[in-house]
Each structure stands twice: as C-alpha cells, then as structure tokens.
C-alpha cells in the first residue's frame, strides 16, 4: 500500500454506552476504503468523528502523518475532509444553482449575480454527469436520486482530499449509480481518498479497494476487497453468538394473523404467520421495511396490495386506520417513543389510559376517575414503573419507565397481538431485563408478540422465531434451533447483495 492519507488508530467514543471501542484503519490516496457493519456497529459515529461533527474520546487520527483532531465541520473542511450525508440537506424551494452555491452565492453590487451562478452551476452539474438538468429548476421538483447526486455535486464544488460517502447509493437508480461510480473513479485518479459506507456488498467489488469490517464498535478486519467474498464479509460482521436461554415452546400455538402478499412502496410481497403464545422477532437492516411491516399490519400506513387473515377466519382484511387494527386486538408500541407514543408533560394516568378511555366512560362521557386510577395503579405495580405516583408527568420518567407506561397502555386495552418496534432502544440493562421478562409472561399468557430489533443478540435471546426482512422482502424465517447470527446477517443482506434487487 502506498503512503497513508488518513490514518485512524484506536478510536474510542462513548455516549451513554460505548459506541466505538478501538477502530483502526488507513485510507491511501486514490483509494476507496469501504466500511461495512451491522446496525449499531458504529459506522455513522465514525463518519461523524472524522468529519468534525462529533468529538472522539480517545485515539488518534492523522492526515499525511500530521495529527488531525477536527473541532468542527469547518475545521475538518479546512483540512480537506468532506462528507456526503445519507439524507440530502437541500432547500426544496430554491433552485438547483442556489442550492449548489448556497453558502457563497456570487454577488455583484450586493445582489446575486444569477448569470455567473447558473454558469458555475452548469459546470458543477456537468462534472457529475447531470448536464441535462437546468440549474434554474427548483430542487423540490426533483426525484430523491437526483437530489442525492446534487448533494454530492454540492460537496465536490470544493477541493477535497478525503471524501466520506454515507450510503450514497441507497436512493439511486442503476444509471445514477453508474454516474456516481464514474465520478468516484475520477476522484481516485486525482488522488482523493474515499471512505465508502454501505451495506450493499455487491458494490464493493466494483468500486472499493480496501474494506474494513466493524463489529460492536471495533474494526475486526481490514483487507483488500479482492481477497474477500460476500460470505466471508457477512461472517466477519456476525461473529459468534451466545445462545440465549431456551424458551419452553407452548404446545398450543395457534394462528393469530396471517399476512399475505403484503406490498407497499417499500414492502414487496411479504408473507408471514404470527402465532399466539409465540415471540416472533423481525430482523433486518434499518430501512429494510421492518417498521413499515408493523405499521401496515396495525393499519397506520396504506398498503398497495395483499391482505391479512385473522385467527381461523379466512376473511381477507386490510386495516385502513389504527382504529381498525385496535378493534381487532392489535397494539403497536412505536419506534419513536416521544414523537409517536408519549403525551409529554401529561400524567402517567393520562398516558396509560389514552387508548382505553371507553372503559372508564360513564353517563354523559364522564370519566370514572376512581376506576381509572385503580386500573393505572394496578399496572404501575405490575410493571414496576418507578415514579413518585401515577399523577407524575411522564416527561420526568426514565426512558425505560416511559416505555413501560406505553406498554401498559396496550395491556390495559387487552390487546391480543402486540407489535413492538425497537422496544429497548435507549433503555438501561436492568429495565431491559424487566421488559424481556414481561414479554415472556405475555407470550405465556397466550398473546402474540412481534418484536423489531436492530440487535440480533436481543432477538436470539428472547424470540421463539425470527423472520428476516431485506430490502422490503421477507428473506428468511428461522425457528429457534435453526438460526445463527451469521445466517440472520446473511439473510439481512441478501436482497441487497443480489445485483438484480431493485
């Protein structure tokens, strides 16, 4: 390998929990270095540190042998380090040209020199192969792929020595990917070092020179792309797995929901059986359609095709609103607790009884407060919610206790099917254990439990069955004795690995 352009050694970072625990890799000039890892492996944090968005706790970075510790994005840009984020940060109501040169619009006598602006913009668009676009067009009218390319063009207006691309192809069509790769070849020829983050393993062979695999915040391997095949990459990401405690499988597992041919803008012909008395895990990468599947079953999102069948009944149903899903005994514990679940600043009581107000309704819509409080207090004790009393505001509770309040909301409603989207995100270990115990109990009582989680370890510990989504498709359905972290990981990547995948 030639001289190092960027060298990262023993990088550490912790937020509440350690995120990076020793990352090492080097980027050589004119080379593309791929970074790959499962959800939560630390890819995004690593990118943020390199481009100056987040400080690191320990470790060293060097650019051409000189210590590099960016204090801000501006500082990093001064060193020639630039990043293209996964989500384009463009202003919809402005033209392409105005977006491209937003921070340094050419001016003449105090007003914008539009002739010069659009002239420069045309050149910038050409450089990335978008010469067909009119720089006067509003960004809002563009497709997501074009916007992504414009974001890339915007970053590349400035000279850069190190370019970070975070999932650049997630929104691109095949011809657009070809344009991007052509640009990357150009940059390589100019000696730019590129860090390429992606979970599309198939792309690495085309574009990358080196690859570093991250696992649990550590770089577990760096090698030449040519020396690894897709299976080996997956094996490196997955690693070994401690087998979780064996669950007693209930003898009387009966069908709760049969999902048939479900399709929407992301999901592609999903078939899945959900059983009473069983904890079903849904694994997959972020953006693979896990949340969308739960929401579609619950009735929160419109689906394009397919249907559900409940229990033994063969009626083909589609729930058009959460009300319908709830009426059929389904509850959803959403991913984003504060945005989709909690009534901030309101009492535990108000939060918990939100879905079950009917139970406490007397004549004239009067609330039977005594009955409500008795019921809320019972769940507070049952789930051991830590608070000063049920009139305490939920905003003052810890994340774990907030989650218990939301779970109680659905237990109070007596739902038969509970869909959990990332139920333990941001929750401390002890509360996690408590939530796991609760899930076992609920399954033992005969409820159907579905859990989406980004942590494979979590799923293999608590689930009876694990289904895997990849790029909107259901790619695997494992029983407890069939799975391994490697198989789950391989299934998560499978619909992205095939080049045919849309």
């Amino acid at each position, binding site marked *: 390998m030639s001289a190092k352009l960027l060298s990262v050694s023993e990088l550490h970072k912790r937020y509440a929990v350690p995120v990076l625990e020793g990352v090492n890799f080097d980027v050589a000039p004119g080379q593309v270095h791929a970074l790959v890892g499962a959800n939560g492996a630390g890819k995004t944090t690593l990118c943020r540190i390199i481009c100056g968005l987040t400080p690191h706790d320990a470790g060293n970075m060097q650019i051409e042998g000189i210590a590099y510790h960016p204090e801000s994005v501006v500082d990093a840009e001064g060193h020639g380090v630039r990043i293209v984020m996964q989500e384009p940060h463009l202003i919809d109501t402005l033209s392409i040209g105005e977006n491209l040169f937003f921070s340094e619009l050419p001016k003449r006598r105090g007003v914008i020199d539009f002739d010069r602006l659009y002239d420069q913009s045309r050149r910038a668009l050409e450089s990335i192969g978008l010469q067909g676009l009119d720089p006067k067009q509003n960004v809002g009218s563009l497709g997501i792929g074009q916007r992504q390319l414009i974001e890339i063009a915007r970053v590349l207006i400035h000279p850069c020595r190190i370019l970070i691309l975070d999932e650049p192809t997630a929104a691109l069509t095949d011809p657009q990917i070809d344009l991007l790769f052509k640009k990357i070849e150009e940059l390589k020829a100019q000696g730019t070092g590129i860090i390429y983050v992606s979970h599309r393993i198939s792309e690495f062979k085309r574009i990358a020179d080196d690859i570093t695999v991250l696992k649990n915040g550590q770089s577990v391997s760096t090698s030449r792309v040519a020396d690894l095949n897709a299976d080996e990459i997956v094996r490196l990401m997955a690693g070994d797995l401690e087998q979780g405690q064996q669950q007693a499988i209930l003898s009387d597992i009966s069908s709760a929901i049969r999902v048939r041919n479900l399709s929407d803008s992301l999901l592609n012909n999903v078939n899945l059986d959900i059983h009473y008395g069983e904890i079903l895990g849904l694994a997959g990468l972020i953006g693979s359609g896990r949340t969308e599947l739960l929401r579609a079953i619950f009735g929160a999102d419109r689906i394009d095709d397919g249907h559900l069948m409940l229990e033994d009944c063969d009626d083909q149903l589609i729930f058009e609103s959460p*009300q319908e899903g709830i009426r059929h005994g389904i509850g959803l514990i959403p991913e984003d607790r504060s945005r989709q679940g909690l*009534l901030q600043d309101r009492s535990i009581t108000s939060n918990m009884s939100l879905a079950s*107000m009917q139970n406490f309704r007397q004549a004239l*819509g009067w*609330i039977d*407060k005594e009955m409500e409080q008795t019921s809320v207090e019972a769940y507070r004790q049952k789930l051991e919610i830590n608070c000063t*009393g049920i*009139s305490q505001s939920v905003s003052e509770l810890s994340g774990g206790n907030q989650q218990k309040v939301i779970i109680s*909301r659905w237990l109070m409603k007596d739902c038969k099917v509970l869909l959990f989207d990332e139920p333990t995100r941001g929750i401390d270990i002890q509360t996690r254990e408590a939530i796991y115990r609760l899930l076992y109990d609920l399954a033992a009582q005969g409820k159907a439990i579905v859990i989406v989680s980004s942590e494979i370890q979590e799923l293999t510990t608590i689930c009876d069955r694990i289904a895997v989504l990849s790029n909107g498709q259901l790619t695997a359905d494992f029983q407890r004795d069939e799975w391994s972290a490697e198989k789950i990981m391989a299934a998560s990547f499978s619909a992205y690995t095939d080049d045919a995948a849309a």
Partner: protein
Amino acid sequence: MPQPDEKVPLTQRTGIFRGEYFGLLGALLALILFFSVQSEYFFSVLTFTTLANQIPSLTVIAVGMTFVLIIAGIDLSVGSVMALSGSVLGLALLDMNAPLWFAGILCLMTGLACGAFNGLVVTRWSVPSFIVTLGMLEIARGGAYLVTGSQTKYIGSTVESVSAPLPGINLSPALFVAIATVVLGQLLLSRTVFGRRMIAVGTNEEAVHLSGVNVSRIKLMVFSLAGLLAGLGGLFQVGYLQSADPNAGIGLELSAIAAVVVGGTSLSGGKGSVVNTLLGVLIIAVLQTGLAQIGATEPMKRVITGLVIIAAVILDVYRNRSGGIGSYFKRFFKS
C-alpha cells in the same frame, strides 16, 4: 405556585379549584384594589354590574376559543360568526315574526353551522385552521351584511329579556348563562373523556391517532362547539344592543384570544383551563373600565392593555418553568 406534585391525589390537582387559579385571581384582585384606590367611583355596585352585563358575550366566545387553542388550532372567525348569527336572529324576529325561542335556536344553529364548516375543512383537507377560519371571517362578515342589507336593524324590547338586568339583582340572564357555560366547559375539559382527548390531541396528535382515537372527530366537534358558542355570543350581543348590527364583533377574535392567553392557555396546544379564561376576560375588562375611570385616554388604554397581555404571557413562561414564578424571583434573592 404549587410544586409539581409529590403525592397529591389526582382529584385534587385537576379539581376546579386548582392552585394555579390563584395567580390570576390575585392579579385580578390587585387590579381592583389599585383602581379602587385611584378612583373614588370605581369600587361601586354600579361599576361591577355594568361590567358583569358587558362580558357575557366575550366570555362564552372565549370558552370556545379555549377549546380550539387546546387542540392546537385557532379560530379567527368567531367575531364575524357572532355578527352573522346575530343578524340571522334579527332577520327571524323582524322579517319572519318568529318567536324569540325559535329565532334564538336559529341564531345558535347559524353559529354551529359556521363552526362545523370550519371543522370539516380543517379535518377533511388538512388545511391549517388559521387559513380556514380566516376565510370564514370574511364569509360570515359578508353573510351578515347580506342578511341585514348592511344596516343595523333595531329590534327593541323583543330581545331585551336576554341581556337586560333582572329587576332586583341588576344582573342579566345572559351573565348566568355565561357563568354556567364556564362551569360546564371546565367540567367538560377536566372530567370527561372528550376533554381528556382534546388535551391529548393538542399534546401529541400522532400518538393519539396511533392509540386508535378518531382525531378528526374531536377536531370537528371542537370547531363546531366554538361556532355554537359564537352564536350564543351573538344572541347576547343582540340582546345587549337591542339591535342586530352586521358590524358587531370586529376584532373580537383577538380580544378572545387575548383573554384566553392571559388565562394561561398555551397557543401550542395541550394545556388550558376554562376558569382561567374567565379570569382572563375579567382582568381585561376590569383593566379597561378602570383605566377609563382614572381618566386614561382611549389610545393609552390600548397601549396598556397590550402591555398587560404580553406581560401575562411572559409570566406564564416562568410559571411553567421549574416550579413557577416563585422560584424565578427566588433567584434574585439568592445571588
């Protein structure tokens, strides 16, 4: 201000006489005391009965506005809707010779219909309520001019009974209806399923939707209720003036919003109290009457009223922060 709860039973906290009323009540009493000292005429039965007979119309409209603000909406049309409802009342009494009870129902239904229209457009097409009710502000005003032929219609003693002081107590039936509306409104808000859901919608609409509550229905009902109460305000107003004036209630929506906000209801939704709104109405009414009596000119009255509204909202910000305004002032003494 009470600390945000140790182990106070819930019933005490959400009861009608919750501690947070005392701040506003104190401000009201302080104003009354101030004007009584400043003007020898202020503290008299006449002042208070005059005040009491002026406020019913604004009070009931402000109650409706409280609900709308709690669900994080706004209703700019209430003044115009009041005028239109009053005009319909006049039309029914004068041109149709309808009995008062029938004309009164027609008046209320007019308000209800306008409010329901607002609610339907807001929920069906997800148009911001600011825009929809701004449109209704124009529509209802135009409607009032059409109904009355752009002229104030003198009705006379037929409607007097609504807002005229009852002999002996010098207070009007309208005042009692307005007070009943405040009490019922507060009970609706703090004691019923509907009230709980209103607060929830204003706090986090997405969470309420995902909990299987029909958010559209709640919004529709709240806007309808605000319209109905604007119609009731129109009935009071016509009774008070003994005539149907198509120019009545211009700018009333802003007075109502001011009273509600002085009462501590949050413009961003999820928080509010009907009793506090009544206190807000009273504070502004006392302020204006008192200022007039101590000889403030009309322009000065408006400047001072404006300052009081802003001061009330600033105080509210501190009241909601870390245990109340008390702890804010404590900081001055500590450091």
